[in-house]
């Protein structure tokens, strides 16, 4: 061991380099690989065409989530193309001996929800998936990031990918969060400061009081959206909160293996004096409940603020105007009071139990606004069960909401859960790109509290009025 102070990121990265290529990438070992139905079929086809096999089938886990219906999951999937993708995942998993949690399996759910809740995700691991929100798993002090399908094929066939080491960024947020400010607001605030490309080329470590005091669910929400500022991933050093979350989960280490793992996890923190390529500091007190007004996740503001003027924003005026035109908004307008047609709560960003608790805390004793269609989609069957067991379902039902079945749903609208053209959706998901939630759909990204306030009033509303 060298005595040079080292970062959490360096410790985990360096422990996974199989070979360094001169003037090239590192050959990087992957501990855990998640696959889903959309980005894996062509990778399996590649294996077949080359006549090569899966190297370590026990290190890959399959779940169906992106392209699954969120009602009537017991019935055959109607869309033949979607059904075909689901069948391909099932057949490929069976053929190569890969664990598969398909539609209807009690463990099924969104890949970035089921990995952690079943104890597959552990500190110090490298984790990849053909999905950019794989950064979620960084909440456990893992290096986790999204990859393309060619890389899925690499991991299947060699458990490695070829990856240049990113630069290092640390983002410190210190102080106490204000009332009504959730982890989602923290990350939307950071992205609004750094912009959608501000962390491209970097791997982020989140540090400071705010993250130390955050639940694992909250940390996952933060790390999840690291990609939305261009970062490959984000991570938070594991601590007692992390260990407590993991302990006892199905695939978590037990007995002696637990003790050994725990001893290792305790080394996973950035040493004092370790250096980063860039560092940012923010005050928790400056953050208010956030909402986006434009067509990338960097276009967010405090909910009481007005849409910035084109003269105030960086980047091209024409791009900014194109974005506001798409949204049907004008510069300088306020967001509060804008009509909302749809509310979506769910996704790998905000589809965990804590998110539904937050949503329920506001709608309890109130009624859904008549002009709002709400899609309430748990991140997994385990979350769905918790919603029932904790009485949240009763609160939802009394307020006029219905619970759907787990899946990615309206976050990317691959299935039938599409927001119609021109309609406004307050969404707890992660992307407000043009057409992301359906062709012509207009997305306002926000926290579960902001979504709940909109769901009961039918307009963009400051959730602090209800707390």
């Amino acid at each position, binding site marked *: 061991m060298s005595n040079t102070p080292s970062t959490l990121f360096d410790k985990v990265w360096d422990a996974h380099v*199989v070979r360094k290529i*001169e*003037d*090239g*990438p590192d050959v990087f*070992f992957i*501990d855990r690989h998640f696959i889903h139905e*959309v*980005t894996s079929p*062509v990778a399996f*086809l*590649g294996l077949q065409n080359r006549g*090569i096999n899966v*190297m*370590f089938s026990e290190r890959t886990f399959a779940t169906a989530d*992106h*392209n699954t219906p969120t009602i009537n999951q017991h019935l055959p999937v109607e869309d033949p*193309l979607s059904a075909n*993708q689901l069948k*391909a995942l099932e057949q490929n998993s069976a053929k190569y001996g890969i664990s598969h949690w398909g539609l209807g399996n009690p463990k099924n759910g969104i890949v970035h929800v089921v990995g952690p809740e079943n104890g597959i995700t552990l500190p*110090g691991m490298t984790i990849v998936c*053909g*999905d*950019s929100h*794989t950064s979620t798993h960084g909440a456990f002090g893992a290096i986790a990031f999204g*990859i*393309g*399908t*060619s*890389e899925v*094929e*690499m991991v299947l*066939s*060699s*458990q*490695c*990918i*070829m990856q240049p080491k*990113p630069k290092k960024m640390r983002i410190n947020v210190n102080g106490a969060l204000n009332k009504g400010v959730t982890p989602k607001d923290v990350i939307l605030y950071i992205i609004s400061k750094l912009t*959608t*490309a501000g962390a*491209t080329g970097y791997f982020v470590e989140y540090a400071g009081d705010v993250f130390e005091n955050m639940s694992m669910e909250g940390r996952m929400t933060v790390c999840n959206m690291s*990609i939305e500022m*261009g970062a*490959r991933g984000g991570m938070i050093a594991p601590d007692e909160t992390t260990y407590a979350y993991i302990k006892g989960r199905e695939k978590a280490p037990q007995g002696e293996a637990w003790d*050994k793992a725990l001893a290792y996890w305790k080394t996973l923190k950035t040493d004092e004096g370790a250096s980063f390529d860039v560092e940012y500091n923010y005050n928790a007190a400056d953050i208010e409940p956030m909402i986006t007004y434009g067509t*990338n996740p960097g276009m967010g503001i405090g909910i009481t603020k007005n849409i910035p003027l084109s003269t105030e924003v960086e*980047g*091209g005026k024409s*791009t900014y105007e*194109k974005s506001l035109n798409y949204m049907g908004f004008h510069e300088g307008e306020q967001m509060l009071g804008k009509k909302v047609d749809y509310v979506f709560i769910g996704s790998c960003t905000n589809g965990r139990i804590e998110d539904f608790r937050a949503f329920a805390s506001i709608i309890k004793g109130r009624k859904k606004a008549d002009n709002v269609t709400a899609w309430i989609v748990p991140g997994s069957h385990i979350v769905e069960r918790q919603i029932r067991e904790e009485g949240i379902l009763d609160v939802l039902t009394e307020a006029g909401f219905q619970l759907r079945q787990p899946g990615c749903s309206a976050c*990317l*609208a691959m299935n039938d859960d599409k927001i119609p053209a021109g309609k406004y959706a307050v969404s707890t998901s992660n*992307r407000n*790109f*043009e*057409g*992301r939630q359906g*062709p*012509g759909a207009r997305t306002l990204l926000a926290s579960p509290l902001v979504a709940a306030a909109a769901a009961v009033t039918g307009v963009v509303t400051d959730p602090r009025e209800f707390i």
Partner: protein
Amino acid sequence: MAYDKFTVLKSTAVPMPIENVDTDQIIPARFLKATKREGFGDNLFRDWRYNVDNTPKQDFVLNNPIYSGEILVGGKNFGSGSSREHAAWAIYDYGFRCVVSSFFADIFKNNSLNIGILPVQVSPEFLDKIFTAIEADPKTELEVNLPEQTITIVATGEKESFDINGYKKHNLMNGFDDIDYLQSMKAEIETFAAGRLY
């Protein structure tokens, strides 16, 4: 995947001076249902390219017959968002072999290199020069020279160098991919894996 070797590409270019072009625009999620790699070019930039009734949007650059070529020139932060390699497949399938921008999102850049598309990152000033040149004359040719790592506006001779790591350059020039390389070191990986805590 097997792809054609890339050495020198001289071609007209299609200009798209829009910033933050995300992969949901390049290929919307509803077109990701195929289980094969081919055919995504038909839906490249689907919602910018076609109206809801599938008629072409006349003001979109891919529908303007004045512009053509194997090089796509995009604004800053091209390819942000989703990791879908389908975005790179769609660009390749449509007929582009090179994308030029002043800044690329990481995953898109990796995906492109892995399937034989060369992402060329130029300075913001040079990007402006390219857009201006194409605006003045849509038949403006660009020459992308991978061995020399240069991009040139042929008519004026204005030239800039670009970066690419030596390993990826070698792969592109020879049509190799990473899987060939990784397959050759499986014994080393096996040993490494045996030493992992989990």
